[in-house]
């Protein structure tokens, strides 16, 4: 009888723990289903105001500017671009023309004050020589267009 009781409390405890964990995960899931907003959504006023959220896009080429500890850059989805200011460590893969997700608050001056910067990379994996060849081909295509 005693062993039975013990097992029952164990099951109930485990079940409660599992339900709690699942609830936690689901609430995180609901909140972050939209992990980031695009600059266009932000410009159209679809992003939340007054609380922190994330913007995702490309780091605009030529936009990175360092002023002391602060880094200024712009995140773009090619249609719209949002200026960002951030001070802190940047991930290694943070580069101009590459994907990034910034978390923070949109100031009244339209500048996004980021508290965290994450790099978003794509699903392509290739050796440097292959990347170099692709870059050259793209460059050549651009020159032809011009």
């Amino acid at each position, binding site marked *: 009888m005693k062993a039975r009781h013990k*097992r029952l409390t164990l099951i109930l405890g485990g079940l409660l723990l599992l339900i709690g964990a699942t609830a936690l995960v689901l609430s*995180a899931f609901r909140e972050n289903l939209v*992990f980031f907003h695009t600059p266009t959504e932000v410009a159209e006023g679809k992003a939340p105001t007054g609380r922190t959220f994330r913007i995702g896009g490309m780091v605009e080429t030529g936009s990175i500017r360092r002023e002391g500890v602060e880094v200024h850059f712009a995140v773009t989805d090619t249609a719209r671009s949002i200026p960002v200011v951030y001070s802190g460590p940047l991930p*290694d893969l943070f580069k101009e023309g590459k994907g990034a997700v910034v978390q923070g608050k949109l100031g009244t001056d339209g500048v996004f004050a980021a508290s965290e910067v994450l790099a978003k990379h794509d699903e*392509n994996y290739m*050796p*440097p020589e*292959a990347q170099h060849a692709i870059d050259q081909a793209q460059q050549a295509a651009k020159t032809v267009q011009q």
Partner: protein
Amino acid sequence: MSTSESRFNLYHYAAPQAFYPVAGKLAPIFAVIAAALTLAGLWIGFFKAPTDAVQGEVYRIIFIHVPAAWMSMFVFLVMAFWSAVGLAMNTRLSALMAQALAPTGAMFCFVALWTGALWGRPTWGAYWVWDARLTSQLLLLFLYLGYMALVAAVDDPRRRDKAGAILCLVGAVNVPIIYFSVKWWNTLHQGASVSLTKAPSMASIMLSGMLVMALAAWAYTIAVALYRVRVLILERERHADWVRGELTRLGEAN
């Protein structure tokens, strides 16, 4: 222990007594295959595959991360399949198969999360984010642990099998959510490098290393599940005469 191997009969092997020796024969074969493929995969991954242009050497985590993540999703689907078979046809062996697979699936699920965290820190800049892909994969780990806890807690074998099967079938809904999360929603996690609908976006030598490791994970899972199901069969069928004979034999060997 005379199994009639002259005619292949699926129903014959669905009986635990018939499957037990078959599993005993197959398990070491798959274990050897798993070991050989792991060595080959590691060789390709570390000594043949070149550096990645964007990420450098840290991308080599992919050779365990992706096979482990695939395996963790696939094993849960296989468990759901055996659960459905068990519920529909009332075969004893199918529930035992699902139960034999669960710990290995949970292990791979944890490995996918762990290696993902160690990969995310140097590339994204964070060990963990609550995006849809990572969150649903974490939910899968809880489903595995919940399944194992449930199965361990229910005393009556029939009710144990049924309860486990229902949890499996309900939880299987999470697997497509994990897989398509990177398509359906904005995530930090990148899209699939390998899929049925498009050409893989990986250099072929990198891809082959990853696929060899994935095959190794398959062989490992099959081998371990077969070894484990043998123990489960002995425990479940312990009143049967053939198990008594087998136990006496094992007792003498120990």
